[in-house]
């Protein structure tokens, strides 16, 4: 890779693609990474309209309004992030520790959830797992609230092992049942006037008898399950595999997994240490890693808007995501979105052409996007969006286009759809 390509590649993977200023910034990728790793942004959360009514219809309406405000806030965080790497990590965890708004219902619980993910996105995985496990949103989403002494519900016990930590093949159905008993005891104290809730451990709901969980015996509670899972050797492997797949390429070599797992073990389960190892691995800059995945709809929108400095109304972005089939906090299953290969679909791909045209339009078009075309030369656009490589077909096809149309053409090009 030449220097420009290397830089663009890093920005594409660690962020949502570089802006012109970022591409021209002399700092090296590793220096940038250090800055980002040291910084834990905690953005101001939105103040949602309070729900001070008991009328069911009113509540439904107010919740819908809160949901819109929350979604707009989410989009604004991604588009405006000063530390885009942190934003990408939060996105990663959202897709790892899946919760869906349809079931959680109260956007304030998701704001609480967002704060937990943001605070611990690059920290100790054990702490993150604890925060997630005891969050009202997750307690609702995977039914652990329903799980109490004598009335066992196995849902969270199963998914926390299968999807969040050690993965299939490392536990038995017996472990799920024992784990479920250990995870009993949680209750939500709701504040109806605010629409908030806090999770509380209530001893009489907890099953206090001995459990045997993953070969260990004890009077385990939730914190013990979290500790056992976060320190299980299979957990960093599962995380390493998923992180590498998300930030580099699918099916990484065993040596790569091993390297990331060692970083986890040596640094008190630090996700930040894993990420540092990831971006400093030579494989990250290999040909296999270059343009190695399809951009998800969220990436396509946020990336295009950020790279070209487009002003965009959040509602317009949300509508675009609906069209392409990716609505934040509304994934198809508890497993989250399909990996990038699931986006080779007509809705996800064809919608991009119209969106490319809209995004590069002028504000007076009343289309919710505003692109300042005068700021860019054709060469700027080629550098930004195609790493400086303009193939003859695009050059010929774009000859008679104005700058806006040329930008739209690049945003529509097959190679641009890849990260």
């Amino acid at each position: 890779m030449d220097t420009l390509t290397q830089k663009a590649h890093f920005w594409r993977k660690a962020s949502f693609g570089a802006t012109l200023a970022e591409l021209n910034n002399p700092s090296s990728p590793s220096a940038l990474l250090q800055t980002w790793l040291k910084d834990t942004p905690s953005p101001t959360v939105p103040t949602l309209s309070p729900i001070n009514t008991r009328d069911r219809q009113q509540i439904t309406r107010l919740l819908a309004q809160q949901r819109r405000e929350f979604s707009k806030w989410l989009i604004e965080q991604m588009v405006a992030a000063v530390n885009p790497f942190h934003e990408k990590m939060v996105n990663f965890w959202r897709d790892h520790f899946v919760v869906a708004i349809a079931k959680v219902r109260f956007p304030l619980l998701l704001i609480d959830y967002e704060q937990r993910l943001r605070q611990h996105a690059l920290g100790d995985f054990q702490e993150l797992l604890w925060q997630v496990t005891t969050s009202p949103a997750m307690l609702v989403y995977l039914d652990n609230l329903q799980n109490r002494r004598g009335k066992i519900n196995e849902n969270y016990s199963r998914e926390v092992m299968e999807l969040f930590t050690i993965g299939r093949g490392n536990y038995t159905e017996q472990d799920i049942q024992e784990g479920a008993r250990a995870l009993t005891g949680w209750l939500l104290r709701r504040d109806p006037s605010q629409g908030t809730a806090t999770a509380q451990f209530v001893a009489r709901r907890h099953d206090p008898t001995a459990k045997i969980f993953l070969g260990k015996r004890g009077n385990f509670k939730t914190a013990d399950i979290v500790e056992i899972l976060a320190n299980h050797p299979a957990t960093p492997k599962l995380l390493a595999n998923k992180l590498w797949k998300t930030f580099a390429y699918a099916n990484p070599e065993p040596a790569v997994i091993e390297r990331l797992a060692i970083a986890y073990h040596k640094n008190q389960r630090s996700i930040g240490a894993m990420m540092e190892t990831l971006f400093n691995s030579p494989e990250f800059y290999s040909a296999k890693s270059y343009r190695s995945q399809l951009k998800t709809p969220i990436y396509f929108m946020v990336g295009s808007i950020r790279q070209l400095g487009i002003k965009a109304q959040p509602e317009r972005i949300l509508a675009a995501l609906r069209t392409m089939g990716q609505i934040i906090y509304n994934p198809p299953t508890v497993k989250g979105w399909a990996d990038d290969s699931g986006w080779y679909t007509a809705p996800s791909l064809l919608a991009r052409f119209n969106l490319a045209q809209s995004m590069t339009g002028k504000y007076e078009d009343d289309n919710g996007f505003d692109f300042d075309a005068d700021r860019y030369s054709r060469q700027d656009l080629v550098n930004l969006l195609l790493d400086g490589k303009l193939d003859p077909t695009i050059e010929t096809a774009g000859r008679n286009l104005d700058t806006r149309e040329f930008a739209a053409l690049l945003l529509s090009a097959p190679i641009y759809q890849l990260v």
Partner: protein
Amino acid sequence: MGIMYNRRNFLTAVGATALLVAVEPLFARANNQRTLLVVELAGGNDSLNTFIPYRDPNYLRLRPSLAIKDGIPVSPEVAFHPALKDLKPLLDQGKLAIIQNVGYPNFSQSHFRAKDIWQSGSPQGSPDSGWLGRYLESTKAQAVDAIFLGDEYPLALMGKSDRYLQLSPRLASQTSGRLGQAIQAVYGQRQANPLAEQVRRRVLESQQAIATLTRDLKRSNAASSYPQNRVGQQMATISRILRTRPQVIYLTIGGWDTHTNQARRHQVLLEQLSTGLAALYNDLRSQGLEQQLLTLIQTEFGRRPAQNGSGGTDHGTAGAVVLIGNVRGGFYGGMPALDSLVNGNLPMQVDYRAIYGEILSKWLKADTKAVLDQSFSPVGFL
């Protein structure tokens, strides 16, 4: 209206376009082309409250508050859930076969693992090869020969080659004018990067399909006798898709993972399913097309016979599979053995691959062994 949309009507058109498919049959394809419709009830349907063993005292014992007591008796042993009343005429006409106790050795109670096992047609599961994908490849099928309706593209339709059509209500149309021509020119050129080439080919195929859709959009009118709910509308879409004579239609319906508040949720799900299917088969009969379609309804597992502590049921093992069409109607696979549960779960009687095998050999006239790696003795529903 043509293919060009201005921005304002673009978004409204997106909603409608995808739901309308060729109204006129594509006579190029064989008139007697058979279609398999797979309906996947994602999440794990509670078979015991669908086909109720209403005379088994164990049923009431295991489900003190969740047992269905007002089922519709259809045999000395089985009652339909009341929400299935629209399917009863199909049973009476001998067009409904219900196979109980379907499963495989060493059950998985994980949604994803269990779905992989069903959709791959292999008890080991597979990350990237589905049983229908392998069948379609054996017929050298093209992208339009199988159509998926839903959000998450199913493993069942995955194969070595590209994917099949997906119809979701969010399809879009391509841009036009000077820019549109430039985009088409770029997409006319083979891409060196294999993933970029995959993007290119998927775009071209989808555009072609959409051109057909858009034509039909003008001609068809939305008035139909199908129920106005989500499943009803999907069935109306399927009726239109059938006229293009695809080999496979795959529909995923979610929401069946009823850990809590099952009674009400299950009622709604079953009612939408049965009224939708009844409308589809009435429609096909009035057009003389009902011989063309075989419907297979499956779910990744049944649910635990004993109800759980929160008005629902947890993941179980063996469940029921339903076939609708030109079948030998009735019940297969025996009654659920509620008196001899294994670790609280039902033992299996019928291997799900035997059902796939029978469909492959008798309905699709395919080489079962090539798709499933082995042959199974038929259940006898075809």
